[in-house]
């Protein structure tokens, strides 16, 4: 191993910086507000308190009777009464995930101290991730169609279930007429959407609402998830989702996610959570090619994009698949860059389950909160690291440590890899 301050990215095959340094001249893009709907806490503070304390939101499914299914645990968002948050005319036309997204967006804007009515309408954009759309809404309408007939299908079906619904509804609710976007890369989407939002801010859009919120906890959504072969069939919440553990047996799905407000640092009011400093995305080689998986390369591109060296990163938020082979690939990627046990690694999603497009967006919030509070939240329930997992996994108890920069990793089913670096934002003093 060469010196710990060695620059990453540029010295590996295919690890070229995305823009050969041209981005460096661009203004910083910062996160100024966050809104959270997570299985272990509704709202940023409830979520963060639970996360630091190691409190899990995983339990038996209550939304429907899961007893006929092999997998029966999920992370459900607790205590969410939609009528408290959403106007009644919107209730009829929205899926559960859209209501959660609208609520999280409202909180994120309030957190940023933004009143959208006071900002130029074309200067605000919305870019969200989606994995499977408003599936529960779609389930009810499919049932009406096939059991009662086409004339019973809701007038809202055409848009309530589709992947673009959260972006559309958020833009309408807040009068945001700038650029829009919807990225679908399963669990990697939370990072891909934020990266796209950063592009828009860099192109001159002052404020972009971004992130991801997903939920498909209905029988039809559950039935559709089971064939991926990765759902944990454990009945014991503390033993079901054990990423990097020798006893990893798959993951527990959850619902929810996070919405973030991104702004140009020079225009942002008040204190920012941190800067979206680097991003990289890759796709895995097709099966049988014999080539290396792309996660490490994504992380190296993100570090190079941020202009950071590996020693600058104080924590890695892992994708944490909970699937033996995928855990090994991720551990090798992290150890390959940082050295064995070379950086603290954590997976607070052990307390929420994997939230699809919401998962990485929520991890970004955790990373930003770590920077803000100087504490790394724990990974829960992991007892014994699998052989060859050479990670300094922060387990059971939070670890207090100054966090200057965090690397967040995410992977989407099928081969999508994304990595994002967030770092403490120190406003530059402009010379007179």
């Amino acid at each position: 191993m060469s010196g710990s301050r060695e620059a990453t990215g540029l010295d590996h095959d295919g690890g070229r910086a995305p823009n050969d340094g041209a981005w460096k001249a661009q203004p910083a893009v910062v996160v100024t507000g966050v809104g959270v709907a997570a299985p272990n806490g509704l709202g940023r503070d409830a979520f963060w308190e639970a996360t630091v304390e190691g409190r899990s939101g995983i339990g038996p499914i209550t939304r429907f009777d899961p007893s006929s299914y092999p997998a029966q645990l999920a992370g459900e968002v607790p205590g969410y009464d939609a009528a408290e948050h959403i106007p009644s005319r919107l209730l009829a036309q929205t899926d559960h995930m859209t209501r959660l997204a609208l609520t999280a967006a409202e909180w994120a804007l309030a957190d940023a101290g933004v009143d959208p009515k006071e900002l130029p309408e074309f200067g605000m954009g919305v870019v969200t991730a989606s994995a499977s759309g408003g599936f529960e809404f779609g389930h009810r309408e499919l049932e009406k169609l096939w059991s009662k007939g086409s004339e019973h299908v809701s007038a809202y079906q055409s848009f309530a279930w589709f992947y673009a619904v959260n972006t559309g509804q958020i833009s309408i609710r807040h009068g945001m007429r700038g650029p829009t976007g919807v990225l679908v890369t399963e669990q990697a989407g939370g990072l891909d959407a934020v990266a796209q939002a950063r592009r828009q801010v860099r192109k001159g859009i002052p404020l972009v609402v971004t992130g991801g919120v997903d939920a498909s906890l209905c029988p039809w959504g559950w039935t559709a998830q089971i064939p991926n072969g990765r759902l944990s069939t454990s009945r014991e919440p503390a033993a079901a989702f054990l990423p990097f553990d020798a006893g990893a047996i798959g993951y527990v799905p959850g619902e929810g996610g996070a919405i973030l407000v991104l702004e140009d640092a020079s225009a942002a009011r008040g204190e920012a959570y941190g800067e979206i400093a680097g991003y990289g995305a890759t796709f895995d080689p097709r099966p049988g090619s014999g080539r290396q998986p792309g996660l490490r390369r994504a992380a190296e591109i993100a570090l190079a994009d941020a202009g950071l060296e590996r020693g600058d990163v104080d924590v890695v938020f892992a994708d944490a698949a909970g699937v033996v082979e995928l855990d090994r690939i991720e551990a090798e990627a992290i150890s390959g860059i940082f050295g064995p046990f070379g950086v603290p690694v954590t997976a607070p999603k052990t307390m929420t389950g994997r939230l699809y497009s919401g998962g990485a967006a929520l991890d970004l919030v955790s990373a930003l909160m770590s920077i803000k509070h100087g504490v790394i939240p724990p990974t829960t329930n992991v007892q014994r690291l699998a052989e060859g997992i050479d990670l300094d996994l922060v387990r059971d108890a939070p670890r207090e440590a100054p966090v200057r920069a965090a690397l967040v990793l995410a992977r989407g089913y099928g081969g999508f890899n994304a990595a994002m670096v967030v770092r403490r934002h120190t406003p530059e003093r402009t010379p007179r």
Partner: protein
Amino acid sequence: MPNTSDRRVVITGMGVIAPGGLGAKAFWELLTSGRTATRTVSFFDPNPFRSRVAAEADFDPAAEGLSPQEIRRMDRAAQLAVVCTRECLVDSGFATDEHDPTRVGVSVGTAVGATMSLEQEYVVVSDGGQQWLTDHRYASPHLYDYLVPSSFARDVAWEVGAEGPATVISTGCTSGLDAVGHAMELIREGSADVMIAGATDAPISPITLACFDAIKATTARNDDPEHASRPFDNSRDGFVLGEGAAMFVLEELGHARRRNAQIYAELVGFASRSNAFHMTGLRPDGREMAEAIRVALGDARLPADSVDYINAHGSGTKQNDRHETAAFKRSLGDHAYRTPVSSIKSMVGHSLGAIGSIEIAASALAIRHGVVPPTANLHERDPECDLDYTPLVAREKRLDVVLSVGSGFGGFQSAMILGRVA
């Protein structure tokens, strides 16, 4: 903000499957002949539905070279995308094994993903809609691929061996423009040198018919299906649901030149905006689409009067046709009256997220051949639509700059500008 990258993006290959013909050549022949490919729905019994017309592609996956396992694994929309991907690679002369796979990315647009397979699976696991607690034991092993349409980008990436950034873009009916716009951005910023980009949708399924019936968005001209898609015509009464795909090889200009690739056109400007008004409704003033057009022209550093042809969204709903007519006047001023406009949806229907890419293909072919495709079925203009919509017959015209626009549910408005490469 004008584009500041010195990396230019060109189309060097295309593959198209649209109703009325398989392959880009058949597609262009249909468009320039002014024939229509709309008909009575044949995939299932359409009698229970208000709108029974669709533009179906006569696509046989086995005849197009997909293996039995590929056919079983992939939803029809993924099949369309993969077959178009193969066509665009051949057309471009792009041999995937001769390029660094980490510099090749994928961007696939779709509005409704694997909706056909999802509905077919639903019918089985719910036993015909009778069981709320759907039975996973009857599900296809590929059902998860249908749940997450990101599988489309995976299927294309596997086809190409791409290891650069890969994504699905799903912004409803502007997906096909936005997916190509996204790919263009990734090449400009240097994240990839080559992007396999385009869009696909295969939505002709009972649930799709039912959901558009419920808001009367689709035509009820069931007794005259061949003439049912009538954009800008005074007698129009809604759009005709379609299906299809178009995929492109997009390359950084220098990359294309170094390998002596053919060039159809350059992607010179792109923008999307949102109306923040209504999930399905449009305001008649066309303000946000006009803004998208203005920003796209600015991105391309082109003046409004440089536009030689507008490939319209032209869905054939009253509110759309008036909305975009207003948007063209608002963004291009008097030049809008001097610019030929047309809607190919009059011939190939509205394939939701796919159509934006299919219309980019039409725009690129229009530049290459110097021909403006017509708007079929346009006999008597809506008095409020007073531009030149190129009725019935294709028109020869040298085209240096073409504007292609899209408008969709969610309030999304997108504009893509293509330019001739000297």
